[in-house]
């Protein structure tokens, strides 16, 4: 447990998070570019949707990260509420704008895909509505953080909202199986026969992994900024800036 305490030390985290973030950024960007290029250019056309299906190489990784991001915030939120770990509090606040951006991207790309394929930009079916609620939850965490002056109580309120809102995550994931929806069922997480040809699936998995590493990079980077702001009156932060 000793390493955990050491990692909980804020100056230590500030020092090691920089190389960790860069170690996530380089393979993340490379994998994302490789996957998106492979999907947009090299993958075969779809038998039914032609070239229009290629938007899924942005849409699916974004949607995956909208769920992954909120789940990670809820776990960090629970840790922050129970153990009062400062880094967990900062993670909740720092991951929210990154997750909100991916959720927004998932909604917009889905809408652009829906117009030519379904014939509409938007419908109020269970999948689309619950994903929109997820965007509002992210925006709620951001707004809550900005509305409360004391950083500790702001972080605690954000942690609580993350834990409460995570109920929505399984609803989004299973909405297409529990109810009749216009959105189609799951492709990648389906057991049994793969619902996607390998030549199409491979770039998608690369893009999803790349986007995930980029999520880690951006969140860590934002955590560093939040940390400096919260600890701006402490001696170690002053030392960081006087040394620089």
């Amino acid at each position, binding site marked *: 447990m000793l390493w955990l305490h050491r990692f909980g030390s804020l100056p230590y985290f500030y020092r090691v998070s920089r190389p960790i973030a860069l170690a996530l950024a380089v393979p993340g960007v490379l994998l994302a570019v490789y996957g998106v290029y492979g999907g947009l250019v090299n993958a075969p056309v779809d038998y039914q949707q032609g070239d229009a299906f290629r938007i899924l190489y942005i849409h699916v990784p974004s949607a995956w990260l909208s769920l992954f991001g909120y789940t990670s915030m809820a776990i960090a939120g629970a840790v922050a509420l129970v153990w009062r770990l400062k880094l967990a509090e900062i993670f909740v606040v720092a991951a929210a704008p990154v997750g909100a951006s991916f959720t927004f991207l998932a909604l917009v790309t889905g809408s652009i895909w829906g117009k030519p394929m379904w014939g509409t930009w938007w419908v109020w079916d269970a999948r689309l509505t619950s994903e929109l609620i997820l965007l509002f939850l992210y925006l709620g965490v951001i707004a809550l953080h900005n509305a409360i002056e004391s950083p500790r109580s702001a972080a605690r309120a954000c942690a609580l909202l993350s834990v409460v809102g995570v109920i929505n995550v399984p609803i989004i994931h299973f909405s297409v*199986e529990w109810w009749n929806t216009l959105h189609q069922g799951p492709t990648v997480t389906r057991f049994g026969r793969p619902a996607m040809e390998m030549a199409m699936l491979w770039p998608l998995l690369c893009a999803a992994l790349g986007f995930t590493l980029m999520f880690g990079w951006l969140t860590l980077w934002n955590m560093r900024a939040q940390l400096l702001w919260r600890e701006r009156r402490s001696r170690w932060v002053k030392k960081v800036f006087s040394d620089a």
Partner: protein
Amino acid sequence: MTRTRRRRLMLVGGLFVGLAAATALALTAFSENILYFYQPSEIVGGEAPTHTRFRIGGLVETGSVERNNDDLLVRFTLADCEASVPVQFRGTLPDLFREGQGIVAYGQLNDAGQFVADEVLAKHDENYMSPDVAEAMKDASGTSCMPSNMQAKR
């Protein structure tokens, strides 16, 4: 683990479990309203509302599409594995519309039991493949049975 931490953990866990139970109950109670569309067998079985507008989802039955030459009126049959409902629609159809395709239409039943739609949306499935693979996988059965992905599990 100290006593305060254990108490906080119980509190957070209790909050989560209570909330999950409440959400599950609410969603079960509202599950009819969350359904985006009714299936043809439910409509024939009288489960769909009669004097209000609702959505129907099914597959366009093979050989059922009739178009008028002088206007945009289209007639076709939407079917699932057990029943079929005649549909008429005046307007532009989505690109994916064709026989065997999953379709969701919005409108009302008339007295003759026909569904008069004023909006038709295409529902594509979760399978992605290149045209040659699709050709190789095509089976000759030509059924208009609802594939499992159109059905919500009850």
